């Protein structure tokens, strides 16, 4: 979706104003630490995947998304998923009162050792596609216009632009389908765009974007 998260090329957002690397803490408040850990720990329950998690943050009202701090957006996404997946009820979230313990024998709640093991193991996303890659190295491709209410990783600023296939990354889980609960592999490419093809008159710059095959057509 063309949500508020799709920020490439947006203007008027002001300076970046970076904090000094030598003094910036990993977390700026204790609640940020807790939101981070709660998000990872509940993610380990296996009731949703990373694309559903991203989509839950993106489909907030744009004003909320842009006004929130980063971890406020994580909190909003986490609450949405907990309720939508039936792990807590809307009432429990509202009252903030613990109700009965969740009775679900299929839930395996990771302990300390399992959590550490899962962090270390990661989650590789390679997954075979049904067909061979459609685009060869160097092929000229156009990013299709996509107006979808679902999750997508084709940035708005690249849609309609023509670039060339710089690298084939193999076949990876397709986020658009994964966010809708269907897991399949599609070929992933690094596509090179000149800044001029993205922005018209522009700096002498190349932008490389990772794009899945369904986002592209031969140009």
């Amino acid at each position, binding site marked *: 979706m063309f949500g508020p998260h799709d920020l*490439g090329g947006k203007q008027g957002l002001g300076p970046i104003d970076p*904090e000094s690397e030598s003094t910036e803490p990993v977390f700026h408040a204790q609640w940020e630490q807790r939101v981070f850990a709660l998000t990872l*720990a509940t993610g380990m329950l296996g009731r949703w995947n990373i694309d559903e998690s991203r989509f839950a943050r993106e489909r907030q009202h744009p004003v909320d998304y842009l006004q929130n701090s980063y971890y406020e957006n994580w909190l909003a996404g986490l609450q949405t998923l907990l309720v939508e997946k039936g792990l807590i009820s809307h009432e429990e979230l509202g009252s903030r009162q613990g109700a009965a313990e969740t009775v679900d024998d299929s839930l395996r709640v990771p302990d*300390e050792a399992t959590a550490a093991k899962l962090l270390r193991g990661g*989650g590789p996303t390679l997954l075979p596609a049904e067909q061979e890659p459609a685009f060869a190295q160097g092929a000229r491709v156009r990013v299709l216009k996509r107006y979808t209410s679902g999750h997508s990783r084709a940035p708005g600023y690249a849609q309609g632009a023509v670039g060339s296939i710089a690298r084939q990354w193999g076949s990876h889980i397709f986020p658009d389908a994964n966010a809708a609960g269907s897991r399949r592999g599609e070929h*992933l490419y690094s596509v090179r765009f000149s800044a001029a093809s*993205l922005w018209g008159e*522009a700096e002498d*710059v190349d932008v*490389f974007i990772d794009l899945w095959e369904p986002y592209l057509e031969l140009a």
Partner: protein
Amino acid sequence: MSHDHDHTDPPADIALRVKALESLLVEKGLVNPAALDAIIETYEHRVGPRNGARVVARAWTDPEFKAALLEDASAAVAELGYEGRQGEHLQVVENTPELHNLVVCTLCSCYPWTVLGLPPVWYKSAPYRARAVSEPHSVLAEFGTHLPASTRIQVWDSTSEMRYLVLPMRPAGAEDFDEEALQSLVTRNAMIGVEQVSMPGRG
């Protein structure tokens, strides 16, 4: 500064809301408090940009390691013990006098956790995500980085699970430095590509 008695002050409110959510999840048996502590401990103290600095210093001093790193970065850094979440598909992009690499995630905050830890606030901020792809020179200037006109910029928008680490140029004057001394020169910002590595005192 005057006292502020506004009890709807957002930071206090959010701290309470998060506390309530955590209690609810613990009470319902959905999270294990020891697992939460293990997660925080990992990213607050064990996984961070010193990992990446070790990778860079090794690449500067060991040509075989550098070749392996550019060929298959995930495998090369796993040999140093760095593997796991958000580093499953790592790519290293090398800076040269002709090319300067800059990494961004315009859609969220994709970042190579295994070698850099969690991203800084500015990396996740709207202005950085907006401008890195459209006006990288002005972004670099905000970090005090000015490249020669002959250097071309390559921006990597990591929209997938591919994760990018910049291999900065070894600074002139550091020819005699050993691996440990080199590590101390390497900044996190240089491995994202908003800065170059410089000698101490020439910041």
